[in-house]
């Protein structure tokens, strides 16, 4: 049974197709990179898979069942810029939101939820910041809070949208360590990723996306110069000059 199977997924915003006939299968217990240029539809792919935006066509199966958001097997880390960090709340409160899906209507997070949330903050090295207002955190710390919230969701599959953007090197290392830990626990983690240099180091499996799936498979066979050219088109020449393809040697 595969954690995620997507078949013939097409998504359009106001008639303009953003994803066309996307199909792929995600293997269990792996770290998977979703790679593609800006505007390729990476965020849209995650949102459509999670049922947050309507699909024009296609089907998403999670562990062989048609996916519904309530099933709580999937955790989600949105792009950091997608929320207002001036919102009046603190780090612990944000992590507690990861528990909301488990709590049910009309109830509040209890003592156990709070302990679990603190535990998750500790896992990302943020326990001292539990009561800190979220606007008073650095970009890297905010990203860690988002990650802790995903851990609090206690899911089997995680979708993370650009968790490495705008974080410092220490945070990037901490995050990748955590992702590997999740993998050791048998979880499946899909990560939208931008930095082509680190793809080979971080991911077991990649999905190269640009409106269509250009290529998909184990990183070694799939993350090739030819496939990258197809995915990035003209922009890759520019990227090559910045010698991102050191990993190719």
């Amino acid at each position, binding site marked *: 049974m595969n954690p995620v199977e997507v078949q013939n997924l097409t998504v359009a915003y*106001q008639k303009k197709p953003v994803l066309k006939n996307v199909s792929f299968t995600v293997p269990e217990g792996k770290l998977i990179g979703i790679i593609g240029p800006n505007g390729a539809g990476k965020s849209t792919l995650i*949102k459509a898979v*999670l*049922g*947050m935006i309507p699909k024009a066509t296609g089907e998403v199966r999670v562990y062989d069942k048609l996916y*519904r*958001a*309530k099933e*709580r097997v*999937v955790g*989600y880390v*949105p792009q950091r810029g*997608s*929320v*207002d960090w001036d*919102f*009046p*709340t*603190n780090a612990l409160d*944000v992590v507690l*939101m990861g528990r*909301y*899906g488990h*709590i049910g*209507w*009309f109830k*509040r*997070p209890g003592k156990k939820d709070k302990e679990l949330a603190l535990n998750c903050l500790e896992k990302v090295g943020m326990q001292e910041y539990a009561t800190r*207002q979220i606007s008073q955190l650095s970009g890297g710390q905010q990203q860690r809070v988002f990650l802790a*919230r995903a851990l609090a*969701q206690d899911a089997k599959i995680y979708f993370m949208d650009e968790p490495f953007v705008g974080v410092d090197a220490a945070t990037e290392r901490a995050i990748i360590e955590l992702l590997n830990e999740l993998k050791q626990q048998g979880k499946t983690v899909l990560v939208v990723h931008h930095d082509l240099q680190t793809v080979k180091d971080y991911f077991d499996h990649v999905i190269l996306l640009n409106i269509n799936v250009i290529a998909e498979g184990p990183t070694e066979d799939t993350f090739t110069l030819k496939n990258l050219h197809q995915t990035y088109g003209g922009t890759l020449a520019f990227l090559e000059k910045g010698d991102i393809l050191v990993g190719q040697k």
Partner: protein
Amino acid sequence: MSYEAWILIVGSLAGICCGITGCFLILRRLAMLADAISHTVLLGMVLAFLISQSLNGFYMLIGAAAIGVLTAVFVQLLHSSGIQEDASIGVVFTFLFAVGVILLSLYADHVHLDVDHALMGEITFVPWDLVKWGFLPELPKAFLMLTTVLIINLLIIILFYKELKITSFDPQMAAAIGVPVLLIHYILMGMVSMTTVASFDSVGAILVVAMLIAPGASAYLLTDKLNIMLIMSALLGVAAAIIGYYLASWLDVSISGSMATVNGVIFAIFFFFAPHKGVLSKRWSQRKLKLT
């Protein structure tokens, strides 16, 4: 109870109802939509009157809630079909409001429901507009309506606190865990509509927007916690009503206008002088950073 006491009570109730509802409007950046709804509910009130042939406040609340939610639904439909949000709001707002005005002038001309009154309101007359509901003694209509709406608002906020919070902070995450984001949005717009109508008699549609937005915006500058923001906005709404009343009787000006003005003045004060988020405090801490 004395005339003065009723005005203070009704003004304070309107302050609380508007304040707590307004907090969510501020956090979701929905001030424009609230402005639209505060006008389109006129259509709801006229329809309620035409259908029920009475000025019963309860029907008014239901009519207003229905049209308020309809306003939000229309805006959502236009917006998701590719029209910009502010343009969608503008079109729906003017259309529904115009229909309300036309119906009013055609069929309800002779009743007390005149446009001037709905737009401007005047709390001065509230103590004499008495009604009898069930076993209760005769009480000012505005008092009964605002009390009803306050209870509804509090129930909604208490029952759906986590949903209101997560859909305000991170609607994407909320959708991902199966919270019905749009439904919560419409419930909130229903709250805004009923709050507006219940406050109409006291302040009217134009000033009610000030009462909805200002206390929440001030409270936002004063705290880092949502629950405290809600409590503060209620307190500030009450403070503005009380100060506004005494200011009006001292200067001999419109009480409603004075209450709304005090709301604006309170916001202006905190905008500059709030401890951490005020303009001066931010300037000051930036300067300190530069010096060190």
